[in-house]
């Protein structure tokens, strides 16, 4: 990687103790360090730290952007507790997250295993990655067209197969699965590449030993591949869950929350309350709840799934 690397006499620790060559490092480059992080610090402070605090503050206020925020304590949260639209958005998002986890993980795992068996070429991996590089908006429009009820190509196939046409975006039972399918299409290859990288890291001799012991392919998969892939699978699960909870673009471009409330996911509901109904306090309160859910997901990942530890070590 680095052309800088010359043969070194001793491997020196990358961080920590100052160089023995005196005068190279007086402990503390604080001044110059401040200069180097100054721009990032501005961005960090004004667009991450302050808004995070302000977001929590706003959730305790009533704020319609025209006047000043008015402190109302827990009012927004008590209102949330009895807001059917909020509970519906949670349920709808949960459904979407669940479908994504199942579809994406299963398909990606299968794809990664296939790639591992027969094709490692960049061309194959690149082709699978193509949808991931497209924006949500493009993925949404492309499928909005292909899944059109009247002249969409998918419904043409469905009709040929002798099945009645499906109103993918227009029926309440299909709206969320359709959104999940679009998202799965977009992310399937990317997730497969992550898992594929994990498969590549499993040492070959582990499999050879299993073969010598007479393990069947299924046993090998269950007892070796899956456990050794655990850190990657956990990462994939967390990324998928956290990403899915924040679905917005495809919904905004295609169904806009409908039909009825079938696709009014959490982030779309926040958007509606804050930006179309100018209710920033209430919108912020829902955002706090979403934040807490995502923090919980990350916490569960760290505590219970031991995602950072690999059985390889």
């Amino acid at each position, binding site marked *: *990687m*680095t052309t800088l690397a010359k043969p070194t006499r001793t491997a020196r620790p990358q961080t920590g103790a100052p160089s023995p060559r005196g005068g190279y490092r007086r402990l503390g480059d604080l001044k110059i360090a*401040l200069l*180097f992080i100054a*721009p990032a610090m501005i961005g*960090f402070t004004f667009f*991450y730290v302050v808004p995070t605090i302000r977001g929590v503050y706003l959730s305790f206020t009533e704020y319609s952007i025209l006047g000043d925020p008015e402190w109302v304590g827990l009012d927004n949260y008590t209102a949330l507790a009895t807001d059917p639209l909020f509970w519906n958005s949670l349920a709808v998002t949960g459904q979407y997250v669940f479908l994504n986890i199942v579809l994406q993980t299963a398909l990606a795992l299968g794809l990664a295993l296939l790639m591992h068996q027969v094709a490692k070429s960049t061309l194959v991996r690149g082709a699978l990655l193509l949808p991931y590089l497209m924006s*949500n908006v493009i993925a949404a429009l492309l499928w909005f067209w292909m899944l059109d009820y009247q002249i969409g190509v998918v419904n043409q196939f469905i009709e040929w197969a002798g099945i009645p046409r499906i109103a993918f975006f227009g029926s309440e039972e299909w709206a969320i699965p359709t959104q999940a399918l679009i998202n799965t299409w977009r992310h399937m290859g990317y997730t497969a590449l992550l898992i594929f990288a994990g498969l590549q890291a499993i040492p070959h001799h582990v499999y050879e030993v299993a073969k010598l012991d007479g393990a069947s392919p299924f046993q090998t998969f269950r007892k070796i591949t899956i456990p050794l892939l655990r850190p990657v699978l956990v990462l994939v699960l967390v*990324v998928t869950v956290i990403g899915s909870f924040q679905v917005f673009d495809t919904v905004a471009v295609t169904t806009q929350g409908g039909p009825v409330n079938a696709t009014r996911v959490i*982030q779309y509901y926040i958007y509606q309350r804050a930006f179309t109904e100018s209710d920033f306090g209430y919108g912020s309160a829902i955002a706090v709840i979403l934040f807490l859910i995502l923090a919980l997901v990350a916490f569960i990942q760290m505590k219970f799934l031991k995602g950072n530890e690999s059985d390889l070590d």
Partner: protein
Amino acid sequence: MSTTISRTAAVAPARRRRPFNARRAGAWALLLLAIAVSVLPFLWVLRTALSTNSSLASQSASLLPADFTWGAFLRVFGLQSPADAIAEGGSGAAIDFWLYLRNSVIFSSITTAGAVFFSAMAAYAFARLRWRGRNTVFSLFLGTMLVPPIFTALPNFLLIKNLDLLNTMLGMVLPYVFMTPFAIFFLRQFFLNMSREVEEAAMLDGAKHLRIFFQIVLPNAAAPLATLALLTFIGQWNEYFWPLLVGSQDDVRVLQVGLGVFKSQSPQGSPDWSGLMAATLVSALPVLILFAAFGKKIVNSIGFSGIK
């Protein structure tokens, strides 16, 4: 990377002994199916974009364009008269795609250049300089990766509004231009692994940190910097939510937002599918070009990064 090569080499002889069997053929078939599902929609989009709207319904099963025409692309770029557009089954709605294209280029370029450069500076301070509180500050920076974008989007919108920067390019780029937590994380990894030898030699010659940064660290990190810039640019090009909130007026509206507008402008009865698909392709074109040019770099970065 090196493991890939050595492992392939180790596996290859065993494979050659059985060049074909049913399992491998089945695996290939499934893999090709997945590739088809990934790639074919783009061909269908192209086919639609080259069709005439009025013929789409009657020739909905043909793989070739229905009544081939460049009309949809002309329409997208504002080169088709409303009369011709309506004759081809378009809505006749005018959309200034050149303007959106320009805005997308400006928005993505500025945010990418700023975020990569300033993040590199910060990453240098986190990886190569020693100062009290360094690890604490770095952890705080990383912690912001956990904050969902929607959560900061509301207060950030209010800030930009209070600064009177709504519908300005400055307001659109400000939250991204100084840093992204991922960029700092990504570059710090590379800077940590750089050899200290040349840096020390330069030090002894009296070079200052700024010179080391510009003349040694940045040139030697050209490859990771380019990969990061590529990933950042694609991510920014595809950004929708923030530009939707802040840049809703024509003079700063980016392509992604413009696409949504174009879609909703189509009258409910007969959407301008050809125009919409042509617009979609135009919006995807820069990413497709980057992918054609740097596909290997992008693909190889996936295993490393974990999260985009």
